[in-house]
């Protein structure tokens, strides 16, 4: 146990150091790199506190996607005019107030009750009818399904918001610039070899999500990463945003989820209720389609607003 605590202590030091670096780094690029490190350390911490599903998500989203996106942004904005640093008084006040709020938060955490309240038992008790083995997936797709559904709508709105920044003339066009394919580039090789393996792994993570750590979002992230890799290697191009199949792909997941939910009114006596015996297949079906939608949305979010003329 002490050995474990020592490891935890080490991880906390690492996380704090990465956090400190993220805030204190001289340039944005350094800060973004530090943030990726922070995300990875956090992922390890999640493993330490018995939350492997969160660890996977943190690694994929927190460190991977968010980090990658911020690193990309920091290189793009390198030449941005730098604002003057906040004045000494501001900084001192900021330090004082942030520290006070953090102290309050710490105080609140220390004041959490014993024995702690928990829904773990309730979540396990409600799991058999869904046919799932992983209670986290149960929470995400059955008990609190509406959160998950709305979260997908949040993603779609973020995508719409990103697209809305395109100039009118380029509306409907392809995001990003065309990557040139270069047969000699190692990236091309990577783009050819890795995606098939990645897709298998992504689907595997989705599939095991029903019973073990993993699930739609983590799987979708890997698929999106593979797609992005192929795009970067110039093997495929990002589709034009006016493509009907693309739009369909984006809304298919939440759409199907919604339809299944509404069908619950008829067949299971309630919105987002699953008919007994069909719960697991339905949930898996929803998850598969969600994974595809998530992959598409993530790719498009990474690709940004349309930058090329729409197809005629």
């Amino acid at each position, binding site marked *: 146990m002490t050995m474990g605590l020592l490891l935890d202590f080490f991880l906390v030091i690492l996380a704090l150091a990465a956090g400190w670096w993220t805030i204190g780094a001289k340039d944005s690029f350094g800060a973004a790199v530090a943030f990726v490190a922070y995300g990875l350390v956090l992922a390890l911490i999640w493993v330490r506190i018995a939350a492997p599903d969160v660890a996977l998500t943190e690694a994929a989203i927190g460190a991977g996607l968010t980090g990658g996106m911020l690193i990309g942004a920091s290189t793009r904005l390198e030449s941005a005019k730098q604002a003057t640093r*906040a004045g000494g008084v*501001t900084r001192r*006040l*900021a330090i004082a*107030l*942030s520290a*006070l*709020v953090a102290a*309050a938060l710490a105080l609140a955490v220390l004041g959490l009750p014993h024995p702690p309240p928990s829904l773990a038992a309730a979540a396990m008790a409600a799991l058999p009818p869904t046919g799932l083995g992983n209670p986290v997936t149960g929470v995400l797709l059955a008990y609190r399904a509406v959160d998950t559904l709305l979260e997908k709508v949040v993603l779609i709105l973020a995508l719409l918001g990103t697209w809305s920044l395109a100039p009118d003339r380029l509306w409907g066009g392809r995001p990003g610039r065309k990557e040139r394919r270069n047969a000699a580039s190692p990236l091309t090789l990577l783009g050819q070899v890795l995606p098939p393996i990645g897709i298998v792994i992504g689907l595997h993570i989705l599939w095991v999500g029903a019973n073990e750590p993993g699930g739609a979002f983590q799987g979708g992230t890997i698929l999106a990463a593979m797609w992005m890799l192929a795009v970067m290697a110039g093997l495929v191009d990002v589709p034009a945003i006016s493509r009907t199949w693309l739009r369909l792909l984006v809304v298919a997941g939440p759409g199907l989820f919604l339809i299944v939910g509404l069908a619950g009114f008829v067949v299971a006596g309630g919105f987002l209720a699953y008919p007994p015996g069909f719960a697991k297949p339905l949930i898996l079906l929803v998850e598969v389609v969600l994974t595809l939608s998530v992959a598409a949305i993530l790719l498009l979010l990474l690709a940004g607003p349309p930058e090329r003329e729409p197809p005629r």
Partner: protein
Amino acid sequence: MSESLLVAAPALPLVLAVACLWRPLREWAGGLLILAPVPALAAALVVRRSSVVTLQHGLVPITFALDVPGAMLLGVSALLWIAAGAYACLRRCGQPLGGQAVVCWLLTLCGSVGVFIAADMASFFMAYALVSLPAWGLVVLDDTERAHRAGAIYVAFAVLGETLLLIGFALLAAAGDSLLIRDALAALPHSPWRGMTLALLIAGFGMKIALIPLHVWMPPTYRAAPISVAAVLSGAAVKAGVIGLIRFLPLGTVLPGAGEALAAVGLFGAFYGVAIGVTQEHPKTILAYSSVSQMGVIAAVLGMGLGAGDGGAATAVAFYGAQHVLVKGALFLAVGVAATNSRRQLWRVIVPAAVLALGLGGLPLTGGALAKLAVKGVLGGGIVGMLANLSAAASTLLMIHFVHRLAGSSAVEDAAGGRELALPWLLLAAAAVAIPWLLFPLATGGSRLAALHPVSIWASLWPVLIGAGLALLRRQFERRLPRFPEGDLLALGKYAMPAAMRIGEASERLEAGLSRWPVASLLLLAAALLLGGGILIAR
């Protein structure tokens, strides 16, 4: 049946106002202006006193009732509205009035009628707002720089008055836990906020009746408004404040402090109005200062009534006010009519106008003399009564000055309109003479003969004579009189402007600071900590 007239009286103008949004109807607007006040007049004549109508709609029931003071003021106001309406459309020489004019006129009329019959606070407040705010659209009708300046001042004071009243009414309603004026008033003497309530109500209504120093809006407004508008505003609309004080001051209860304070302010205003008025040039401005003075007398009477717990003051004041409605309305129209006459025929206007004007000073046998007689009892014979007599002398002085200016400055208004303009004016002038005689017994319970008694005649004559003497004196010192701008104290506003600008600039500087990200976000953190602290401290 006759009670339905009580509903029709405010409803007809409102309905017509809404209907006038439809353009073709506005072609007949002139007729509408004359027609709209007719139910109110009928109601004043035929509806039984103490009849109550309650409409049970909405959040609060709307209650209308008619008592003697209300009926008197309602009737004469309706008459003035008819006459002024006729004047307004005759003056346009057959051209249609603008939509803004018609709608604002009708809305103001609706409010003007409503305040006299409203028996609950909600509908009274509503009517009071109607009589105050849409009138802004009438004040600025001439669309001149002067009109807009006056309009801005007018609306500022109207809104200020409304807001004071809102809080006053809220206090009153809280005291009585009822929205009926009668119930709320009955509870007022026991209210813990009695002083505050009275102060707010007097200040709010004082704004309307131009109680010093809240009078500054009145001269520029009347000066800038078209003749017919000035007539209804000075005659009818101002009486919303009078009826407000009648309705909301607990006149049956002895409240010496408040009453005497009100009386003192009122009497001061009665002289102050004259003092500034005699330095003015324009007849409309002089009439405005006369209103300041006359309303001061009314406030004094109410104050004495309040101090003595004299419930009869209400009727006396209403009678005094009714007389003022007709006279002041007729005098404003006279300014307009005078402008249409050539200098040689001017006497046809001047003579009747002079009689009416001197009536305000209490010339024997006029309505003014009757009015002064009616309030004499309330004022008493002491120093207050004496001061009231002296104020009559002062009024005479001011009115002689008015007639003088009226004769000396024909064509002060543009001389549109023909001879037929005189018709509504003459009608009103005749009413101003006759109606006080009709109402006198109703108001005082006494006989008309009392007014014909030589003692009474002398009592009202000597102030007039003194006033005439003062007028001669004034002519002697004409050149040496100081000149005050319209709205006298308003000139102090120019010192307030830079202060207001400084507040604005300071706020903009503050905003520039607050809209900086670090400032706002630090404040957010501070707020979070304070909120947490605020919850924990109390634990």
